[in-house]
C-alpha cells in the first residue's frame, strides 16, 4: 500500500499506434487476464466450489501445511485457507471495482469535457486535480475510516475519488490531444457536431490509455485495501479478508511460516496480474526480432582511387528484413555526393551505416573504409575515436539534434575538449562565427529551444565541425527549413567544403538541392543504388527508367497546368523486395526478362534496358 496514485503517462500511450492487425496476443496479457478471470470465477462460485466452509474451524487440525484435505493448509483455528481465500476474493475484487468505478465516473467525464472544451473550466478542474494528487492519500483514508467506521467500501470510494484525478489527467490530455488532431478538424469542417465528434473520434482513441490506467489503479487499490485490512481496519473477524489473513498468519510466524505463502501469494499474484495487463497494453510496440549473427562474408573492399570514404556492398538488416541491399559508393575530398531517393529507399540508413550510427539492433554486412581503416564491424570504442574527426553527421531535425538541457556553448566545448582543444571557450565562439552567426557570444549562452530552425542547423554544423572531420554526412539537412534558409545553409556547406576540402555525403529527396550542391549523384530505389554518375550526367541524361520517370514527374516553372507524367504504384516496403529488378512492376520499359534474373549495377546503371543515350538531347532541350 505504499503506492500513491499511479499515474500513467498519457502522452506516451496516446502516441502508441492502434493495432488493427491480428497479432499473437502478448503472453503477459494472457497470463494476467487468465488469472483475473480465474479469480472472478472463483469468487462468484465460492459457495459451490470451495471445499470447506470458510468459517468452520477444526481445532484439531490447526496450522497444518498443505494436504489432500486442506489444499493450502489451515490457519490457527483450523479453518481451510483455500476456502477462506476463495470467499475473500469477492470482497477484494468488489472493492477494486468500486474504486475504479468511482474514479472512472468522476475522472473520465470531467476530464474529457475539460480537455475538449478548454478555457476556465479546464484551468479550474486541472488545479483541483493537482490538489487531489498532492493529498497524503492513505492518511485521508484512515481519517475516512475513523469517521465513517470500519467498512472498506468507504475507503475504496474515497480512493476512487483520489484516483479520479489520475483518470482526469489522462482523459483531459487525451481529449486535448485528439482535439488537435487533423481528423477532428476535418470532422469539424464536415459539419459534425462537437458531441458526436467526442463520441465518434475522441473517446475511441482514448480507450487504451484508460484501460492501462484502470489496471494500474486496480493493482494499487487491491494492495491498499489489503493493507487497511491488515491493519485491522476492515470488516471484523471472522469474515475472510485477504489482508487480515496475512495479519493472522503473521501472529503464528514461529509455528507455521507456511501460512504466509498462500495468504500473501494470492495478493501478489493478483496485483501482478493487473500490472501485467497494464504493461502489456502500454508497450504494444513490436519488439525487434533478435539479431541473428550471420556469417559475415566480407567482400574484398575495392576502394576507389582518391576517395576518403568508400562503402563496398554495404548491407543493413533488421532481423530478417534487409533495408539496405548492397550499396557501393565513394566520397572524395572537396566533393559532394548526393544520395537521392524517395522515403523508404534506405538512403538515411545508408548514411547512418556510413557514420556507424545505426541502432544497436541493426546488422551491418559489407565494408566501409575511411582512410584505409575498416569501420564495418568495428567496436564502439574504435568508432568513437573516428567519429567527430573522421566522420561527422548532421541530421534533418536541427532543434531536436541539440541537447535541450545544455547551453550551445557547452555543447560545443565538450567535443572541442575531446578533440584536444586548449581554449574551447574562444574556439566555440569562433566556430559559431564561422557558420555565419553574427551574435556568436549571445548564441553560445542560449539554449536550443530559443533558436530558430535555421539557426539551430548552423549550430549543429558548428558542432559537427569541432573535430575537423574529413567526411561530413548530412541527412536531409534542409528539409525542415524554409527555402530562403535552405539556400543559406547550402551556401554554408559549400563554403566549408571549399575551405576545408571536406567530403560531403548529402542525403536528400529534393532534386533542386541535388542540382545546387552535388558533384556526384547516387539514385537509390528499394535499398539499392540504381544509378550513379556526375550530377550533369544523371540529371541531363538519366539512364535508369526510375530516374527518368522521377525527373519527368517534377512540375516545371512556366509549364502551365498540363497533366504531369506520373509513376503508377508506390515504393514497395522492404518485406516485398524481390531479388530481380524492384522497379519492374512500375516500369514502362520492363520486359519478361526483367522479372527473371537479378540485375547488377553495370556501367553506372542497374537496368537491363537502360534509357537510350539519344534521349539525352530531348531531355536537354525540354529544360
Amino acid at each position: 500500500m505504499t503506492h500513491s496514485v499511479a499515474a500513467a503517462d498519457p502522452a506516451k500511450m496516446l502516441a502508441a499506434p492502434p493495432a488493427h492487425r491480428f497479432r499473437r496476443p502478448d503472453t503477459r496479457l494472457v497470463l494476467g487476464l487468465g488469472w483475473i478471470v480465474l479469480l472472478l470465477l472463483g469468487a462468484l462460485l465460492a459457495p459451490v466450489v470451495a471445499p470447506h466452509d470458510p468459517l468452520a474451524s477444526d481445532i484439531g487440525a490447526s496450522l497444518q501445511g498443505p494436504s489432500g484435505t486442506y489444499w493450502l493448509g489451515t490457519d490457527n483455528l483450523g479453518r481451510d485457507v483455500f476456502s477462506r481465500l476463495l470467499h475473500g476474493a469477492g470482497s477484494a475484487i468488489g472493492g477494486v471495482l468500486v474504486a475504479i468505478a468511482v474514479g472512472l465516473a468522476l475522472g473520465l467525464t470531467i476530464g474529457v469535457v475539460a480537455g475538449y472544451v478548454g478555457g476556465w473550466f479546464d484551468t479550474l478542474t486541472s488545479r483541483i486535480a493537482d490538489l487531489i494528487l498532492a493529498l497524503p492519500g492513505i492518511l485521508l483514508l484512515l481519517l475516512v475510516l475513523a469517521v465513517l467506521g470500519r467498512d472498506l467500501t468507504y475507503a475504496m470510494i474515497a480512493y476512487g475519488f483520489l484516483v479520479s484525478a489520475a483518470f482526469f489527467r489522462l482523459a483531459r490530455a487525451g481529449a486535448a490531444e485528439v482535439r488537435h488532431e487533423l481528423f477532428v478538424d476535418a470532422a469539424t469542417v464536415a459539419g459534425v457536431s462537437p458531441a458526436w465528434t467526442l463520441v465518434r473520434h475522441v473517446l475511441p482513441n482514448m480507450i487504451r490509455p484508460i484501460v492501462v490506467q484502470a489496471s494500474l489503479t486496480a493493482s494499487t487499490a487491491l494492495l491498499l485495501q489489503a493493507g487497511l485490512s491488515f491493519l485491522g481496519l476492515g470488516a471484523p473477524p471472522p469474515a475472510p479478508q485477504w489482508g487480515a489473513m496475512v495479519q493472522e498468519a503473521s501472529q503464528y510466524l514461529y509455528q507455521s511460516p507456511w501460512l504466509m505463502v498462500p495468504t500473501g501469494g494470492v495478493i501478489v499474484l493478483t496485483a501482478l496480474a493487473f500490472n501485467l495487463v497494464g504493461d502489456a497494453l502500454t508497450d504494444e510496440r513490436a519488439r525487434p526480432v533478435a539479431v541473428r549473427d550471420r556469417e559475415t562474408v566480407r567482400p574484398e573492399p575495392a576502394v576507389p582511387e582518391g576517395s576518403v570514404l568508400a562503402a563496398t556492398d554495404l548491407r543493413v538488416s533488421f532481423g530478417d528484413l534487409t533495408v539496405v541491399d548492397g550499396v557501393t559508393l565513394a566520397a572524395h575530398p572537396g566533393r559532394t555526393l548526393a544520395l537521392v531517393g524517395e522515403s523508404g529507399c534506405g538512403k538515411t540508413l545508408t548514411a547512418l551505416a556510413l557514420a556507424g550510427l545505426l541502432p544497436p539492433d541493426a546488422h551491418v554486412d559489407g565494408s566501409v573504409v575511411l582512410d584505409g581503416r575498416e569501420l564495418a564491424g568495428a567496436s564502439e570504442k574504435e568508432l568513437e575515436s573516428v567519429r567527430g574527426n573522421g566522420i561527422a553527421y548532421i541530421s534533418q531535425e536541427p532543434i531536436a539534434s541539440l541537447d535541450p538541457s545544455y547551453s550551445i556553448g557547452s555543447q560545443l566545448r565538450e567535443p572541442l575538449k575531446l578533440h584536444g582543444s586548449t581554449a574551447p571557450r574562444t574556439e566555440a565562439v569562433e566556430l559559431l562565427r564561422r557558420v555565419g552567426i553574427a551574435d556568436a557570444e549571445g548564441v553560445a549562452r542560449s539554449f536550443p529551444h530559443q533558436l530558430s530552425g535555421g539557426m539551430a542547423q548552423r549550430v549543429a554544423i558548428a558542432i559537427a565541425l569541432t573535430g575537423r572531420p574529413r567526411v561530413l554526412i548530412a541527412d536531409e539537412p534542409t528539409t525542415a527549413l524554409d527555402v530562403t534558409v535552405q539556400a543559406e545553409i547550402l551556401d554554408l556547406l559549400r563554403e566549408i567544403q571549399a575551405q576545408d576540402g571536406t567530403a560531403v555525403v548529402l542525403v536528400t529527396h529534393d532534386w533542386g538541392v541535388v542540382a545546387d550542391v552535388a558533384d556526384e549523384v547516387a539514385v537509390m530505389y528499394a535499398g539499392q543504388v540504381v544509378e550513379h554518375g556526375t550530377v550533369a550526367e544523371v540529371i541531363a541524361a538519366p539512364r535508369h527508367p526510375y530516374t527518368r520517370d522521377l525527373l519527368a514527374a517534377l512540375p516545371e516553372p512556366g509549364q502551365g497546368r498540363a497533366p504531369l507524367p506520373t509513376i503508377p504504384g508506390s515504393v514497395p516496403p522492404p518485406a516485398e523486395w524481390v531479388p530481380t529488378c524492384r522497379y519492374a512492376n512500375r516500369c514502362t520499359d520492363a520486359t519478361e526478362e526483367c522479372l527473371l534474373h537479378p540485375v547488377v549495377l553495370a556501367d553506372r546503371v542497374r537496368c537491363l534496358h537502360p534509357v537510350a543515350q539519344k534521349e539525352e538531347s530531348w531531355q536537354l532541350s525540354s529544360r
Partner: protein
Amino acid sequence: MAALLEVTDLSVRFKRTLGVDGVSLDVAAGETVGLVGESGSGKSTIGRAVLGLVPPSEGSIRFAGQEIGHASRRTRRALAHELQVVFQDPHSSLDPRMTVGATVREGLPPDRRTDEHVAALLQSVGLPADARHRYPHQFSGGQRQRIAIARAIGPDPKLVVCDEPISALDLSTQAAILNLFAELQDRTGVALLFVAHDLVAVEHLSDRIVVLYRGRVMEAGPAAEICAGPLHPYTQALWAAAPVVDPEEQRRRRTARAAAGVVSASAAPPTAQSSNGCPFAPRCPVAEPVCHTVRPAEEQVGHRRVACHLLAADRRAA
C-alpha cells in the same frame, strides 16, 4: 463576376503576435488561388480562418455573399457541404479507427450516404471501390491523400481549402495528386485555395498567387506573371532561393542571388510585429529609411497588387 470567397482586411491574433495582419484576397468560382509563403507567413492560418477553425480578430470573410468570419455552429454545419478541406498530413487527418468508407460517408449529405455513392467517390479519386472496407493504415501516403480528397469532394463543395496537400508525400506520388486536383477541378468546377510552400507546385496548379511574409501580403496576381517576373523584393528573394533542377542554370542563379545581397534570416534583427514598417525591410537588399517606419500600401501594378514603397516611388517617378 462576384467572388466566391472574399477575405477583406483579415487579421488573426494569437496571444501576443499577429499571425495574419490585414490580408485581403478573393477566390472566384472554379478558380485556383495559391497562398505562398515560408513558415510564420500566416498562410495556413488564413486557410484555417476560412474553415472556421480559428476565429478572425478583425476583418471579414465572405463566402458566396454570406459573412462567415464568426459564423455560428449551425451556419458552419450548413456550409460544410460547400466548403471543404484537405490537410497536409494524410496520416493524422484520417481517424485511424474508422474504415475509409465511414470516413468518407461522414461528410456526405444524409441522402447520399449509400455504399454505391461512397464506392463511386473512391473510384473517382483512383482508389478501388472495395477500399471502403479497409482502414487508413493499410494505404500508402498517396492513397491516404486520395481518401482525404474523396472525403472533401464528396458533398460537391464549391471551395476546397488545400493546406500543404502534397508536401508530406513522396516525390513519385506528388505529381499524381497534382494531376488529380486539376482533373477534379476540370470535372466539377470546384474552386481551390491552395496553401503551400512549394513554389513550383503552386505555380503549376494556380491561376493566381498571393505571396505572404509575416502575415502580410507582399505581392498578389496572376501566377504566370508573378513567376515570370516577381516585382516585390521578397518575392524575388523567394524565387531566387528555390533551386531549379538544372546544375548549370542553378549555378547562374546562385551567382545572381549572391549579387542581390538579401540579408540572411539569421543575421537580420527580429522585427517587432507592431512596427509600422515593411516586415521584409530588415532583410531587404534595397530597403530605404521609409521602409522601416511606414507600412507600404498595396498598390495596383497591372494585374498585380504589390506592397512596396520603392515600387510605388518608381511608378511616381515614371
